[in-house]
């Protein structure tokens, strides 16, 4: 049954592509063998469904009339320029990139879309060269359950509702951003009246599309300011630290060496006062001493004492 349907749809596509003018429904009924033997009512219904199916696959079927002939009757056609993938050619290095790209998405529907795109490239005459896969294996995963509905809504420009931090939101999605392996949504939050950033992993429950597709336009530079909020805060203070040689590189690489001794070295470290500098220093344990400023030294000592209080208190 499915074979006959596929056959009919391919033949309809070819008939529309190869006709030089708009073709009427009745003429198509003659041209496409799959419509023979259907009564008019069934043919009309089948034809409408077939057009919808082909359009959903991206086949650009135009409706119109060729004035000279069927002035009253709508006709259909597919223009080759609209149908065909433009010619593409790639250097061997570029083919290697494409072959690597095939393996990137770990999310099922995106992986499938990438495969389909690449088979169209190979069908254009580009030869895939599997030996060139090489040593690079970038992967993007999208494990958050909110990802697929947000992606669909973003593509469709459709508003969504979801619960975030226990509050119901209505959001117009602008962009999906991937950072440190986590996905974020940048969008206009109707409930707050402003653009907001949402971490997908913190969305509880379903993401529900509401209203019509095409409900809004993407702003020109939608998310740059919002995404800057994901970046680390700019340093506004400087600490003087003493670090055991070769230790706590996550601090020393951000710092400037001042006095380097055999066992200990002094480092100037710029930091953002509102940030996690106390945690970062504490991670170095006894390998890091804060010389200046005194408030920072006290904060680090308090951090360590709180750990001791909590853990040494338990029997």
């Amino acid at each position: 049954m499915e074979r006959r349907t596929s056959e009919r749809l391919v033949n309809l596509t070819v008939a529309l592509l190869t006709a030089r003018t708009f073709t009427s429904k009745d003429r198509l009924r003659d041209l496409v063998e799959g419509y023979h033997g259907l009564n008019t009512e069934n043919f009309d219904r089948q034809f409408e469904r077939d057009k919808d199916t082909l359009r959903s696959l991206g086949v650009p079927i135009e409706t119109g009339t060729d004035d000279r002939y069927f002035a009253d009757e709508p006709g259909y056609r597919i223009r080759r320029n609209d149908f065909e993938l433009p010619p593409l050619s790639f250097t061997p290095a570029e083919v290697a990139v494409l072959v690597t790209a095939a393996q990137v998405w770990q999310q099922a529907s995106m992986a499938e879309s990438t495969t389909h795109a690449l088979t169209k490239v190979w069908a254009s005459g580009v030869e895939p060269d599997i030996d060139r896969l090489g040593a690079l294996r970038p992967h993007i995963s999208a494990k958050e359950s909110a990802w697929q509905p947000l992606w669909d809504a973003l593509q469709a420009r459709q508003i969504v509702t979801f619960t975030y931090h226990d509050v119901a939101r209505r959001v117009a999605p602008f962009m999906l951003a991937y950072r440190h392996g986590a996905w974020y949504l940048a969008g206009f939050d109707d409930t707050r009246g402003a653009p907001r950033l949402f971490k997908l992993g913190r969305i509880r429950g379903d993401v529900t599309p509401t209203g019509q597709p095409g409900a809004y336009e993407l702003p020109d530079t939608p998310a740059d300011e919002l995404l800057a909020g994901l970046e680390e805060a700019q340093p506004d203070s400087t600490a003087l630290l003493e670090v055991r040689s070769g230790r706590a590189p996550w601090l020393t690489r951000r710092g400037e060496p001042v006095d380097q001794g055999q066992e200990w070295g002094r480092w100037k470290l710029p930091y953002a006062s509102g940030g996690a500098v106390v945690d970062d220093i504490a991670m170095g344990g006894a390998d890091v001493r804060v010389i200046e400023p005194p408030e920072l030294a006290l904060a680090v000592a308090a951090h360590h004492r709180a750990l001791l209080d909590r853990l040494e208190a338990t029997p």
Partner: protein
Amino acid sequence: MTAGPQVARLLTLAPYLQRREYVDVTEVAADFDVKPRQVLDDLQVLVMCGLPGGLPDDLIEIDLDLARDEGVIHMRNSPLSRPLRFTRDEAVSLIVAVEAVREVADGPTAQAAQSVLDKLSGLVSEAPPVRLEVAAGGDDVRDRLGQAIDQGLQVRLTYDGLARRGTTTPIVDPVRVEVRDGASYLVAWALDRNDWRSYRLDRIAVAELTGQPAGGHGAPPVTGTSLDNAPDTATLDLDAGAAWVAEYYPVRDVTVLPDGGVKVVLPVADPGFLTGLILRLGPLVRSVDPPSAAADALAEARAASSQLD
């Protein structure tokens, strides 16, 4: 409509075969990501397709016996000579995938990725609404590693590992670069460990060629690091403010507690990593099981807080 996927495939298969005079069924199956049986089924549909008119010359011709018996496809007379243009999903997914390659690749590969993107961007009306940020380390490091992998050379890394919480200089035979969870890792044979190791690219400060060729060690394990096989685990009970740990580290298990705190089970391959994490979390740690796993952290905290006295 269940015929949709097959029709989409047929519209691509016909021009694909038209450009390849003889091609193996298995190769087609691999390129289209379907089973060979499905390819044969598709061929049966294609021979019933062609120009309208119903004359024998109008139909696509495929030697079905050759396909079934020898696994080779020979097709001619297809009225479809070019594939359909990309759908929006197809274009965006491919463009973002190539962007990911560009973000983590070394100089020459990144340039090739950019030129692919330039060619593809002409096919879409707007930039994909997706932003990728992958921690990929410095350009010099990536270029040197790319060169070493390509030419089979050994490197010495200056590595700011978290496990030892200090800088080490391992000599390794690099094999490939992987990206997992938004960070790039070098998978290499570590000579001093006599085993495979992963090194985060953004913690490799320097990569230098030693002048020796890399040895052959077979293929590295498919995914992951020593963490996947770590025999030891530690369970941390944490305040709500530390919930990010579950999102940031490869935890074996995470339970959200009624008051918003979290209980995470972490694999422990190098104890130094756990010590650093406990010190960093400090007041947010409610308990550690087994208690011995926190001993080093407590000793350091004691030493550090007494420095002020």
